[in-house]
């Protein structure tokens, strides 16, 4: 609400009622606890003008008072003494929890929403110290900052705080540099989006074999200790170091997402891949270790192999099944990767990506009518952002590209038991060095 406190324009924000806790806590964390907020029933989406007029003529479901009376008062009623008080305050987090029995501590961690609802390892001084031995970084060094959504404040965390969460996840100390790299990314695995996002972490380089990570049969869970606990640590550290992931407050995912338990963490099967490793595509040497982060994991399409006659149509069908906002990352078993070479001549990932980019199309009218296109792409197109502005000019029945080439990726994973493969709708964020955190 910069318009109110920075530009001096008295403002009222209208929200739907399910957001009451999250918008109030955001206002408080931004130093505006008395921001004028009015609530209407959920949902607004999909309602007719008549139904929405009834919302406007009706009562705020939180306060029971008329919506428009609250709007007018929000713009005209002077601030009271309490509202004018300075609200700046320091917040801190103690290093330790009050001593208690193991049973009490397990209950406390659960009640405080510090877990993923599965049993955790209690982070004693000894266990955390054992984790810290596996990095050259000092315990009090700041690793990064994280938040669950663009509207919230960034929280800060140190090497020791990351170690605490790594212990809780059941990770072995030798995994710690990978976990630190994940934390250093600043990319949260616990985004609060109503769309119920999960994250994906792809590990490349020698660290995969050093830690015994699985890149082959069953790599994507739940069959390998390193994959499972590194991924779990990524989720726990995200929710705790960013200040929480609590439904209704700091998490608004309507349905939730099973991928979030382990953040789809695995190693790329570089040894069986016919192509360049993912981290090498992003500026690292093959001898370096790195982890790549993807967010927005929600939609998946899958298939078996590539049939000689109609493989192109089958892949196009899969692509059109994705939501149009989230670009595709192809997760290919090594057998499928070689089939793509045999069928299409894609002897480099870039060639396959170019083909996907050109073939992921749908009629413009259908594309722009998707709610996610309306929310996130149409506004950018209408204000001239390319290539969306050009694609917006297409006739309704003209097939337009659904994604941007730079957002399409390919990763090879799997044990060659069969050429099954899938497309994960997700957004690549960054690749972070693991070696720098050893």
């Amino acid at each position, binding site marked *: 609400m910069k318009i109110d406190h920075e530009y001096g324009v008295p403002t009222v924000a209208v929200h739907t009622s399910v957001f009451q806790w999250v918008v109030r806590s955001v206002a408080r964390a931004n130093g505006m606890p008395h921001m004028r907020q009015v609530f209407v029933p959920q949902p607004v989406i999909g309602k007719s003008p008549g139904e929405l*007029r009834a919302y406007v003529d009706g009562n705020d479901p939180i306060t029971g008072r008329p919506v428009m009376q609250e709007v007018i008062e929000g713009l005209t009623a002077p601030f009271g003494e309490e509202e004018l008080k300075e609200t700046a305050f320091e917040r801190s987090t103690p290093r330790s929890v009050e001593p208690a029995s193991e049973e009490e501590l397990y209950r406390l961690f659960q009640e405080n929403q510090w877990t993923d609802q599965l049993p955790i390892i209690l982070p004693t001084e000894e266990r955390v110290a054992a984790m810290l031995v596996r990095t050259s970084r000092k315990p009090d060094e700041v690793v990064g900052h994280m938040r669950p959504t663009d509207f919230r404040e960034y929280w800060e965390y140190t090497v020791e705080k990351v170690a605490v969460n790594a212990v809780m996840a059941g990770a072995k100390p030798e995994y710690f540099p990978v976990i630190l790299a994940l934390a250093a990314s600043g990319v949260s695995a616990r985004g609060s989006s109503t769309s119920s996002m999960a994250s994906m972490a792809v590990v490349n380089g020698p660290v995969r074999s050093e830690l015994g990570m699985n890149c082959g049969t069953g790599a994507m869970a739940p069959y390998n200790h390193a994959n499972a606990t590194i991924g779990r640590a990524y989720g726990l550290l995200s929710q705790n170091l960013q200040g929480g992931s609590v439904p209704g407050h700091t998490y608004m995912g309507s349905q939730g997402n099973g991928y979030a338990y382990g953040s789809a963490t695995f190693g790329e099967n570089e040894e069986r891949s016919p192509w360049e490793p993912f981290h090498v595509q992003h500026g690292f040497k093959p001898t370096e270790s790195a982890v790549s982060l993807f967010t927005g994991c929600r939609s998946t399409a899958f298939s078996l192999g590539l049939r000689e006659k109609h493989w192109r149509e089958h892949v196009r069908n899969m692509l059109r099944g994705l939501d149009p906002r989230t670009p595709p990352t192809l997760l290919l078993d090594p057998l499928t990767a070689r089939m793509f070479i045999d069928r299409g001549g894609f002897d480099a990932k870039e060639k396959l990506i170019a083909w996907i980019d050109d073939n992921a199309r749908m009629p413009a009218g259908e594309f722009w009518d998707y709610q996610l296109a309306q929310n996130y792409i149409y506004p950018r197109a209408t204000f001239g952002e390319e290539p969306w502005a050009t694609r917006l000019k297409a006739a309704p029945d003209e097939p337009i590209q659904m994604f941007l080439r730079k957002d399409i990726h390919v990763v090879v994973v799997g044990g060659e038991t069969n050429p099954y493969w899938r497309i994960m709708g997700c957004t690549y964020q960054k690749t972070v060095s693991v070696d720098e955190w050893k």
Partner: protein
Amino acid sequence: MAGRDKITVLNPMGYPPKVAHHSLAPRLDQLDDKTIYLVDCRFDDSELLLKEIQNWFHDRMPSVRTVFKRISSVYLKDDPATWEEIEANGDAAIIGVGH
């Protein structure tokens, strides 16, 4: 029984930032003859609800001028051009809807 002995464990939460106070703009005396911007954050049909608020003003408080204004891009981006326009030409704003 070992499980009942008191032990000390470390707190897993990160460090929150200091919260700085932001003063809100003074409120208006009344809305007659004032210009209110209805700011569409372009999320989940917010436009339709704001247009009904605009209709309400037309029906019930016709002396209030309303201007429907879409933010310049998606709601995730700051929009100083729009805020400056409202600061220059408006008296108040209603923003909606959603987060």
